[in-house]
């Protein structure tokens, strides 16, 4: 941040979609912050996308509606967009551009940080291996989240991913350490009612004091959505690497982010890639997702749960597809389970946490965790096959062991998967339910768990 001002240019050559082209510009820099001032004195923020031949293309975050070529001016501020940060940001609610939305003044800044962040030196990255308890059994037990991991939730339109996001934000904690924990929650293009739900939910549970909320609602300009995840991650990095906190960042909904990116790309007349998204969608997404991690010699960590709703539940859509290449697994919300009224409707057979194996077991969760989780995966997969078979031959045509697997499937969905939105289960409670499911099977069907654990935890006959 500097006390030097910027030059104000009034030669606006063109206004096209979210872009403003300014003529006769000297010394503008890529990504430089621009203040657009209307003839009525209204100010909007933007940033430089391209410079050259005396022209600068400015992307206006708050949209160009109501701007005219005459009377509009663009002030090039001489710095990139920065977020003021301090410990006081905890418990605050900001809009999508990082401005206070809770009626309180700007936080008194310790630092002003470039929202684009600095890339993490790969050499300095520390391998994530510490468990984060979300209090949601299916995640903690079978798709375990690890500090520093990026684990997206792939959902679909109208499903309960936002309920799940709010529940994780309220309940998440680090176990076995006294380190501070914080949640940075960025709502991108969500409905007003959803934004209010997130705010109220954190406020009423008392979790707001360890959270920072960034709310970009559906009626806010789409272009603001490009900035929202970046300001959220800037705050997260400060809390993690300057203040040594473990920070969980929840970004919902990244599909709205990608839509905003597509809008800008179309206005810039770039050659479209798959489904009209820009060819650099992968690179752009990686600049967000790769801001998760842990650094050698630093105490804190940034863990990300980006949530994206897959258009038409299509997992091959470019957004989930490219996200999956960057992140370390995925949690898939299933339409069938959602229709059955199961909450959280997570399809475990399509979900995976690639770092789970390193974050569980003796010393972090419990010695038997990995094996009992494998056994339940296996049993539930078999239960699905048996259900399909029962659909053809009927229940009467099933063997006794098939019926046991069907029972396992039912218990899994009713007692393990199903959980109240305010039910916070400890890892011990989660493991106890996993053993209850395994105990529905005869001992000779248990092939993935060592005998010593079976002797210790098996409760069947």
């Amino acid at each position, binding site marked *: 941040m500097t*006390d030097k*001002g*910027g030059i104000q240019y009034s030669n606006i050559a063109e206004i096209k979609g979210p872009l403003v082209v300014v003529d006769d510009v*000297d010394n503008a820099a890529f990504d430089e912050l621009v203040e657009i001032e209307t003839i009525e004195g209204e100010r909007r923020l933007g940033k430089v996308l391209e410079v050259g031949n005396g022209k600068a293309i400015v992307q206006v975050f708050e949209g160009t509606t109501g701007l005219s070529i005459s009377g509009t001016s663009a002030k090039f501020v001489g710095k990139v967009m920065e977020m003021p940060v301090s410990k006081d940001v905890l418990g605050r609610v900001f809009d999508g551009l990082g401005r206070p939305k809770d009626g309180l003044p*700007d936080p008194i800044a310790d630092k002003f940080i470039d929202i684009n962040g600095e890339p993490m030196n790969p050499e300095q990255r520390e391998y994530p291996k510490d468990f984060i308890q979300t209090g949601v059994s299916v995640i903690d037990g079978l798709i375990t989240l690890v500090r520093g991991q990026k684990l997206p939730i792939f959902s679909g339109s109208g499903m309960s991913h936002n309920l799940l996001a709010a529940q994780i934000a309220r309940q998440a904690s680090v176990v076995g350490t006294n380190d501070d924990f914080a949640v940075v929650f960025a709502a991108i293009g969500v409905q007003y009612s959803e934004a209010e739900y997130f705010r109220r939910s954190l406020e009423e*549970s*008392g979790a707001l004091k360890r959270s920072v909320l960034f709310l970009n609602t559906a009626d806010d300009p789409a272009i603001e959505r490009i900035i929202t995840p970046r300001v959220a991650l800037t705050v997260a990095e400060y809390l993690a690497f300057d203040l040594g906190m473990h920070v969980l960042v929840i970004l919902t909904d990244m599909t709205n982010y990608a839509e905003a990116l597509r809008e800008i790309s179309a206005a810039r007349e770039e050659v479209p890639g798959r489904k009209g998204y820009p060819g650099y969608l992968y690179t752009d997404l990686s600049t967000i997702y790769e801001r998760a991690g842990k650094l050698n010699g630093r105490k804190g960590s940034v863990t990300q749960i980006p949530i994206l709703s897959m258009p038409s539940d299509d997992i091959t859509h470019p957004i989930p597809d490219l996200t999956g290449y960057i992140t370390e697994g995925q949690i898939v919300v299933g339409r069938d389970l959602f229709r059955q009224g199961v909450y959280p409707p997570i399809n475990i057979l399509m979900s995976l946490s690639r770092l789970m194996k390193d974050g569980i077991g003796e010393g972090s969760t419990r010695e038997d965790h990995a094996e009992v989780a494998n056994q339940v995966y296996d049993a539930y997969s078999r239960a699905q096959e048996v259900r399909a078979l029962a659909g053809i031959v009927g229940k009467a045509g099933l063997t006794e062991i098939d019926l046991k697997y069907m029972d396992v499937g039912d218990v899994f969905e009713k007692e393990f998967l199903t959980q109240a939105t*305010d039910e*916070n289960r400890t890892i011990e409670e989660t493991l106890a339910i996993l053993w209850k499911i395994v105990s529905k099977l005869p001992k000779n069907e248990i092939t993935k768990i060592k005998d010593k654990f079976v002797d210790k935890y098996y409760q069947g006959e």
Partner: protein
Amino acid sequence: MTNSTITATIDKILNQTEKSILTDISGELSNSHQKLDDSVSKLEAEYDKIIADGKKEADKIEKQIVGGADIEARNKQLLALESSVNRVFTTALEQITNSDRNSDYANLINSLLEESTQILGTTEVKVFTNSKDRDTVQSALSRFPGSELSSETIDCIGGVKIESKVGSMKFDNTIDAKIDRLKPLIRKEIASKFGVNE
């Protein structure tokens, strides 16, 4: 069959029945004891569960109350602090407004003009200032060839606003604009004077 035989048979049946009843009673007694023993452990488990659930709920409510109160207290502190910081700025602005336009102020105007023309890249500019500073600015402009003082005055505490001759580039170097730019940078220092974030 003699009476004694009948009596003996009846006694035998009675004995057997008594035995059987006693065995049943004793069996039922041990069953009852067993059930009672079982129910004790179940009751204990149930009791523990109720206590654990109650503790969880109490923790939840405590978190809600403490969290809410913390946030409320912090927010009130922030508002009080902001109003104090604003009072500091208001007082500072009042002092600047009422300050004498002496040689120090002329030096300030000179440096503001220098900075502005450097940023715009030319001295061929139109300069705007308030009515109070017109004379000071006019005398400073002799050092900037091609510059001219506009007949229009602007509403500001002090300082200058410059514009290229064609009017396509402007630079605001008034004291008001400078303070606006400085404000976020020095708020922390002012707040620390009130004992916050030291």
